[in-house]
């Protein structure tokens, strides 16, 4: 290194240092309100189409808005579409909001909607389910778009809050016209830069380190929030996350572990905001193999017998699980859908906890002394997942069933229970959130007979299968009104969970956000983090 270069390097360093000190000294005082938010996982991309995961979708929703959005009560509201008409069950017409501009100044028009539809269906997109692949999207004029469907779908717009609108000209100018392919070899522009219409503008995104947004002063809607900047940091360690909240270094974080909730509430500066989540936790059983794997039973599969399934159900004391493991924060459930999402929920009651009845059922089914079976359980996916499984193991032991617990990190658990792993589980715990916020989604992915070609029953690991349940779900989709649909779903639930005992529902787990007392947030049961509703004192 030459002398002059050394001097120059030093000078640069000195200037940087001086600037930094000045920046610290001149940092604005009480005026600018910065929301500091932390989550246990990282934001994988600022391109919302990259992964269909609620964290990514909700946070990126601050930048990219959909044609519709959902309010605090989960009701669908107009957003970039001011209104829509269902001209007939196959023909939806959307009237777009006028005068909306993207962050970089482009006007929002029908072309952007059509472009975004094409992008969300492109090969690299993980949100392909947002639009039926065979739908035709037609521009009527600059602010009117028609969606022409091949089959009726009253739930068309249910998931459209998280289908954010991209600017056609911006995406094309930056080579981001298609969602980034999963096997991409070049870094995607839209993975580090964003340009939506939403209440916040992306300032910087360092993957896995920090993401910063500032408020969009030209947002079309009247802001309910009063914050100027949002800084997101992933803090993977739960104890550190709690400490950071208690020491006032962050304003909002998720999740607070059940064990730390009392400590957070005892602190004068912060509190736990708890509420029911719409995710249902349940137990599944292998009902398709002729010989049950990972078990002591040879030559047959006890789970094919409804009496054995019901015996397992009645052996599990969900109230005790809720009290001891979930600290009373869960909502025991008779269905695989949360009460908030299904109008007929109150008509259904869980089978009572009854170990004697359970033993009798096992004896009738030919297992008076029970049998041995392995249970697969994730240990880092749901609230206290491994502890729930341990409790279930203990309860089943009381009716003579010896369960070997195999608790694994989610990366291994999902690898073995998924299609790629050959649905390799005899007895397992799983959770499910219907992203459409109604029953059809649960029938489609969890309860329906497994069919890999149509992606029906795709997460039905044990392949519980009753074609009449599938028929009811499909029939419901033809019903334009919600009451009619829910009648069909109620019949479906009755057969699947009570006549057939295809699954053992446990509970809806609880959300637990840690929030500083000076920060006011709104908690929606789908666990979306909506910066646009945050106010700070």
């Amino acid at each position: 290194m030459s002398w002059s270069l050394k001097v120059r390097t030093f000078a640069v360093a000195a200037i940087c240092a001086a600037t930094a000190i000045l920046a610290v000294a001149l940092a604005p005082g009480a005026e600018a309100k910065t929301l500091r938010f932390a989550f246990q996982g990282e934001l994988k991309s600022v391109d919302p189409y990259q992964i269909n995961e609620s964290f990514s979708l909700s946070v990126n929703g601050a930048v990219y808005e959909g044609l519709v959005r959902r309010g605090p009560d989960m009701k669908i509201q107009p957003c970039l579409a001011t209104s829509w008409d269902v001209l007939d069950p196959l023909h939806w017409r959307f009237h777009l909001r006028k005068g909306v501009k993207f962050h970089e100044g482009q006007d929002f028009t029908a072309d952007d909607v059509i472009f975004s539809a094409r992008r969300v269906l492109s090969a690299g997109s993980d949100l392909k389910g947002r639009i039926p692949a065979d739908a035709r999207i037609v521009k009527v004029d600059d602010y009117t778009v028609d969606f022409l469907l091949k089959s009726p779908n009253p739930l068309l717009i249910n998931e459209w809050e998280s289908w954010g609108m991209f600017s056609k000209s911006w995406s094309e100018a930056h080579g981001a016209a298609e969602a980034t392919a999963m096997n991409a070899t070049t870094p995607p522009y839209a993975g580090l830069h964003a340009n939506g219409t939403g209440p916040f503008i992306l300032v910087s995104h360092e993957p896995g380190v920090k993401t910063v947004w500032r408020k969009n002063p030209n947002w079309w809607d009247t802001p309910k929030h009063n914050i100027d900047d949002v800084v997101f940091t992933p803090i993977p360690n739960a104890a550190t996350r709690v400490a950071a909240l208690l020491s006032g270094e962050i304003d909002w974080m998720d999740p607070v572990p059940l064990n730390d909730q009392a400590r957070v509430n005892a602190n004068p500066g912060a509190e736990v905001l708890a509420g029911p989540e719409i995710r249902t936790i349940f137990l599944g059983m292998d009902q398709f193999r002729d010989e049950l794997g990972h078990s002591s039973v040879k030559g047959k599969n006890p789970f094919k017998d409804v009496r054995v399934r019901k015996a397992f159900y009645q052996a599990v004391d969900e109230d005790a699980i809720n009290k001891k493991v979930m600290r009373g924060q869960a909502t025991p459930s008779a269905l695989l859908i949360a009460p908030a999402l299904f109008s007929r929920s109150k008509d259904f009651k869980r089978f009572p906890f009854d170990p004697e009845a359970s033993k009798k059922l096992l004896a009738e089914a030919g297992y008076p002394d029970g049998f041995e079976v392995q249970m697969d359980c994730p240990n880092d996916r749901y609230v206290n997942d491994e502890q729930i499984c341990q409790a279930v193991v203990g309860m089943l032991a009381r009716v003579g069933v010896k369960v070997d617990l195999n608790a694994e990190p989610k990366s291994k658990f999902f690898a073995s229970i998924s299609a790629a792993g050959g649905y390799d589980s005899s007895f397992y715990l799983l959770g499910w959130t219907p992203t459409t916020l109604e029953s059809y989604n649960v029938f489609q992915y969890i309860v329906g007979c497994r069919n890999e070609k149509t992606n029906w029953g795709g997460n039905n690991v044990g392949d519980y299968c009753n074609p009449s349940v599938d028929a009811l779900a499909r029939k419901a989709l033809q019903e334009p009104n919600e009451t009619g649909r829910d009648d069909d779903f109620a019949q479906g639930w009755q057969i699947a969970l009570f006549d057939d005992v295809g699954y053992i529902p446990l509970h809806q787990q609880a959300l637990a956000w840690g929030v500083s007392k000076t920060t006011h947030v709104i908690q929606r049961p789908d666990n979306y983090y909506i910066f646009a509703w945050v106010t700070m004192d």
Partner: protein
Amino acid sequence: MIAFVVRRVLASIGVMIAVGLIAFAMFRYVGDPINQMVGVETSVAERAQLREELGLNDPAIVQALRFLARAARFDFGVSYQFKQPVADLIGARMPATLELAFVASILSLAAGIPMGVYSALHRDSALSRLFQALSLIGISLPTFLTGILLITLFSVVLGWLPSFGRGDVVRLGPWWTTGFLTVSGLKSLVMPATTLALFQMTLIMRLVRAEMLEVLRADYIRFARARGLSESAIHFRHALKNTLVPVITIVGLQLGSIVAFSIITETVFAWPGMGQLFLQSIQNVDIPIMAAYLLFIAFMFVTINLVVDILYVSVDPRLRASLHGMHG
């Protein structure tokens, strides 16, 4: 000498290839990357296609060789999770880890050497016993526990130091960000560096103490005393100097392990370094990041060892002689 170096470099390359092969043989037990890349509603067909496109159906050895062949051209692929080039991701995280390791090393030396010297000179004093007790704690307390205890005390109770992150950083050139130039950056360094330094400090203290006791028994010290030199001259000019040779060797070698084992410290303090990136990538089964990180760590160890070997040969005449002898 040149032949020796060439031989050692070739052996180092062999080690790195072996690390690559072993790494890929193990990745299959970490889990399925596809499940971490797509949402739960993605169809079986799409998942299968993705698996094929990423080459995950190939045998581990094919995947490993493909990775190594690209790595030889400094192409480490694209992260499954972030869809960003792995070299960029690791490069962006490297300054954080290296600064942390650097401060931790300095800290462990600055505290470890005086403590070692003191406890060698005043073997039975109360302070020496305290140092010994501290060093026992330093060796036996797991890093995550030390970290959480520090956070609870200094962030939550006292509110002096930040509990997570790197504070404000200043960008120096295209490749480096530093936390040394801001107040929040320096404050953020204190606890992670202390946590990381604790084990090293214990090690250095014990090493210095043992070496010093050894040296103090040596003949030249006795002769120095006989010559009537002052105690401080004997202790610091003669004894300490000779004690430090093995200490410096160990510290050099330990620098590698500080970088490699900062994983837990980084995770506890949400320190945005390579270790945290690596841990995230294990959870996400992000094979390109895991492979590149392991290769980087192997490279670091191999390089340090190579340098040490070469230094030994050039410093120690006996080793040189044996090399010449080998050549006949």
